[in-house]
């Protein structure tokens, strides 16, 4: 295998039939030289926005609005997770207990909203999970202003109360109008159009956030923590760095870009195997899902190549 670093893929090249990709065109980041590479199969895995950007930039007579973009969904349905809110509290107990070192893991509370009729929420669909952990307050904790000098050193030498906090990660629904588009007026140093991102949370996410915060406090109080406080630092799409959905999968080529095997509907020898293929965001970290789908798509591609279908 040859890895070719410093290569910026500018577009995917469609062959004369209009039904297959011939390969990719790149610009060498060091020499600015343009080169083409040819292959039977192309796997696009440039990250959700990167892959969509390449596809949007690969125009032809067959695909004037972007490679494989018969549906008009390419670059749309941008999703991310919304988070940065939850609750934390303190405990008066276990003062004689401690730990040593850094805990390598945290706790996880899986989704418990909208699983069945009993857990159905009136104001939003889908749901969220919590990540969290506990520790004892260290030298950075609040120490009364009155303390300085030797008394302050004595306080600092000891650990404080146990604290426990959970922070929520919520699902974002796919909205056609949450999108990325090419900006041909602003180009990057390689002369490629930059991306314009336009996405917002809507009522479902905002309603969900209210519950994400208040349910966190409810649980911590039920767990007998004291001085429970909620927090919401606000969140915009993009902060979750779990962007996805820009070339979504689907059974119907009229409403999706990729088929069930991550192939572009109209150009089956191009596979897109990063977050772009996602149809819904769920509320868990998505990387393992991307990896599993990539492995599955690669396996499928190998089998198809053996059968000479690709």
């Amino acid at each position: 295998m040859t890895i070719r670093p410093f290569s910026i893929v500018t577009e995917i090249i469609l062959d004369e039939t209009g039904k297959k990709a011939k390969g990719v065109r790149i610009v060498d980041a060091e020499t600015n030289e343009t080169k083409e590479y040819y292959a039977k199969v192309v796997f696009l895995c440039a990250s959700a926005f990167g892959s969509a950007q390449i596809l949007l930039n690969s125009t032809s007579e067959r695909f004037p609005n972007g490679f494989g973009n018969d549906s008009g969904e390419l670059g749309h349905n941008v999703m991310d997770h919304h988070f940065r809110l939850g609750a934390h509290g303190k405990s008066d107990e276990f003062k004689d207990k401690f730990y040593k070192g850094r805990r390598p893991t945290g706790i996880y509370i899986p989704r418990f909203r909208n699983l069945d009729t009993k857990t159905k929420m009136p104001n939003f669909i889908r749901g969220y999970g919590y990540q969290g952990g506990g520790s004892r307050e260290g030298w950075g904790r609040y120490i009364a202003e009155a303390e300085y000098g030797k008394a302050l050193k004595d306080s600092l030498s000891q650990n404080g109360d146990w604290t426990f906090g959970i922070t929520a990660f919520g699902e974002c629904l796919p909205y056609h109008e949450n999108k990325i588009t090419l900006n041909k007026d602003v180009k990057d140093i390689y002369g490629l159009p930059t991306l314009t991102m336009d996405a917002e949370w809507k009522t479902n996410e905002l309603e969900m956030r209210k519950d994400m915060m208040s349910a966190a406090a409810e649980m911590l109080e039920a767990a007998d923590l004291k001085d429970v406080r909620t927090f919401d630092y606000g969140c915009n799409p993009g902060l979750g760095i779990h962007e996805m959905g820009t070339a979504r999968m689907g059974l119907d080529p009229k409403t999706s870009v990729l088929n069930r095997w991550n192939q572009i509907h109209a150009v089956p020898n191009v596979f897109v195997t990063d977050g772009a293929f996602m149809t819904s965001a769920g509320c868990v970290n998505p990387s393992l899902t991307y990896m599993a789908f990539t492995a599955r798509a690669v396996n499928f591609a190998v089998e198809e190549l053996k059968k000479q279908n690709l």
Partner: protein
Amino acid sequence: MDRREALKATSLILGYSLTAGAASALLGGCKAQTSSDWQPQTLSAQQSDLLAEICEAILPKTDTPGAKDALCHRYIDEMLTHFYKPEKQKYFLEALKIFDEKSKAKYSKAFVALSPTEKEEILEILAKEAADYKDETGEKPHIFRAIKSATISGYFTSEVGAKGGLCEFLPVPGPYKGCIDYSTVGKGYVLS
């Protein structure tokens, strides 16, 4: 990501009560320079000497190192230079004058010239002021609190302070024990 927001969030989640400036310096990897020909960059020589005395009064040398040993005043100069915007620098330097003002009013001497007990008297006055002070925006903390926050974080993020024995220093990488008796350690940790 709005770094400022993120830092505020992080400092609260971690249970830190540092001022915004001290928290951004801490998480931004602020470090005092140890060279022998060090010169302050934002502070004047006189302000630097004053800060060194204030920091030492806040964290004096005992059987463990003090703020001077840990070069906390240099840490603060570094913080002011690289983590404070000009208007916040100005606020800090202006507010710093209060130490000499109080000292002169009470003892007719500059703060640096006071005896340890007299310095404590001045700190006592300012600590009380700081306790009653309301910083609505989080942008203009009381100068005593701003210096105390930065002194503590400068101390524990310095090698001298971290390894000086006030708390137990736990380097990375290291083992993890999930549940032990507090008495077997008997003090807090320095994890950062």
